[in-house]
Each structure stands twice: as C-alpha cells, then as structure tokens.
C-alpha cells in the first residue's frame, strides 16, 4: 500500500471515530430525563400568607385560614362537603375557600403570565381545593405554608413557573 493511501485511510478512521463520538453525545443528551429543580419563592410564600390572612365578609368576618380549618373537619363525598359550616350566603366554607383561591390566583399569577399549581396534598378534604392553570415542566419556584389545628395539619403549596 502506498503512503498517500495509508494517510487517507487514517483520516477516514479519525472522521468515523469523531462522527461516532458526536452521535453518542447527541443520543446521551437527548435521552436525559428532565430533572425537576425547585427553588424557594418569596412571591409564592407571600401569596400563601396573604391568602390565609384575608377576611371573608360573607363568612362572619372569618379569615381564609379559619375557613380552611373548618373545612379540615368535614368530609368529602359525592361532590359535597359533609359537616362543613355554611357562610351567610349559604355556601360552605370549603366552597368559599375554593372560590377565593381560584379568584386570587387567576387575578394575580394567572394574569401576570405565570403557570401555577396550588395544592394541599396531605389532607384528603383540602386536596379538593387544588387549583392550577397548567403544569410546570421541570424548573419551578415553590412556596409552602403549614396550618395546624388540634393535631391535624395541612401544608399549602404553590408552585410557579
């Protein structure tokens, strides 16, 4: 074999190796599972504390925190909250809390262009008050707030992205 042929052969091998390396890198990068990264959000936490402190006139000036505490004592079956107190307009404390949560989220983070996920995962009744306008993909900012009432507790979580 002549010297020039050997050089070309060597070059071809190098090019093939480079192409294989590139292909491997691309495959590894595209097959990576998206990792969920969560950052602490002051805005989300401020929202939760503000929400809990808001007074509801129709419910004898009770705060949203009190409505949620009352709602925790009820049970949920067949789309009804059994055992929850009613406000002056006949709406149950749970439904009233849900309306306020949806209203405030829509008029704040919803209108500011955020995707939000509000959830209360650790309580079966309050779980029904979850609200969202989409799903956060991988990166999210989170704020959480715990409410405790006679041995029972619930953690309110708001994810923003």
């Amino acid at each position, binding site marked *: 074999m002549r010297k020039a042929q050997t050089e070309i052969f060597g070059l071809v091998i190098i090019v093939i190796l480079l192409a294989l390396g590139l292909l491997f890198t691309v495959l590894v990068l595209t097959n990576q599972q998206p990792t969920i990264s969560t950052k602490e959000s002051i805005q989300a936490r*401020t*929202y939760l504390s503000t929400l809990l*402190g*808001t007074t509801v*006139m129709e419910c004898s000036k009770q705060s949203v925190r009190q409505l949620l505490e009352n709602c925790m004592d009820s049970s949920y079956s067949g789309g009804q909250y059994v055992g929850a107190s009613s406000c002056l307009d006949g709406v149950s404390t749970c439904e009233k809390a849900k309306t*306020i949560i949806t*209203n*405030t989220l829509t008029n*704040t983070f919803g209108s*500011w262009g955020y995707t939000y996920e509000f959830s209360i995962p650790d309580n079966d009744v309050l779980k029904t008050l979850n609200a969202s306008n989409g799903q956060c993909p991988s990166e999210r900012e989170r704020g959480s707030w715990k409410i405790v009432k006679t041995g029972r507790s619930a953690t309110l979580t708001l994810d923003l992205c």
Partner: protein
Amino acid sequence: MRGQIKMFETIAVLIVFFILLFAGITFYFTSQTSAVQKERTEAQNQYAYQLALRALNLPELDCSFLVTQRDNCVDAFKLNVFSTLLSEQQTLEQYFPEFGYSTIKITPIFPSGSTKILYDNTPLEVNSNLTNKNPILIYNPLLDTYSFGVIEVNVYA
C-alpha cells in the same frame, strides 16, 4: 510540486482551525452576554422588591397595633392620606431618596377595588423599566377586615 501541496495542506488546516476558533469565541461571548443580561434583570427585580418592602415597612403605611406590626400589610386609611400627600411635588421630592424613579401602585383583588397610586416619579427619559408585583393585605380599620391586594412597583432606569 510536492512542497506546494504540503503548503496548501497547512493553509487548509489553519483556515479550519481559525473557523473553529471564531465559532467558539462567538458562542462564548453570546452566552456570556445573555448571562450578564439575566443577572442585570435579576438585580433590577430585587431592587424593585426592596422598594416594595421599604414601602410596606414605612410607619406612614404599616398595620401596627400597639407595638406589634403585621407583616406584608398596609393600612387603607393611611394609604389614602399618604397617597394624597405624595401627589404634591414637595412631598414627592422628600421621598425621592427612599423610592427614586419608580411608580408604586396598590390594587385590591378580593374584594376587588380601584387601583391607588401611592408614588409616581417617572423620569423624562426611560431607558428600561421593570415591574415587580407582590400580594399584600390591605387593612380596613373601620371594619377591622383584611382584603387581598397587590403592590406593584415599577422601577425605571
């Protein structure tokens, strides 16, 4: 002839090397510029949040009961009086060291209400502006109730 071929080969290698070098430099500087821009926006956002906190902690606005102060809350009565005062040029100038070139608005969300402009000092020439919005409580001392509201701080540069 053989020497010429070798020289062309060297030139071709150098051309490829410089192309790769320039591509690398361009990529590096583009990513650096976007990172700097991101940090600048972040800093501006933090400054706007700082202004919101400054406003919320002013004795002219805060919800204080005896010696305790409620976090993240403005008194609706104080807000009315203070915003009227800040609409006068002389008072606006006195608060310039606190709020600089910015606009601060407070809007009740639940129950809904009209937006109140607390402070408005817009420069003649605006190069960039950044808005920071945060939920706050608005206390009505007459009814002893708290409304859900939003404080909006617009910072000009």
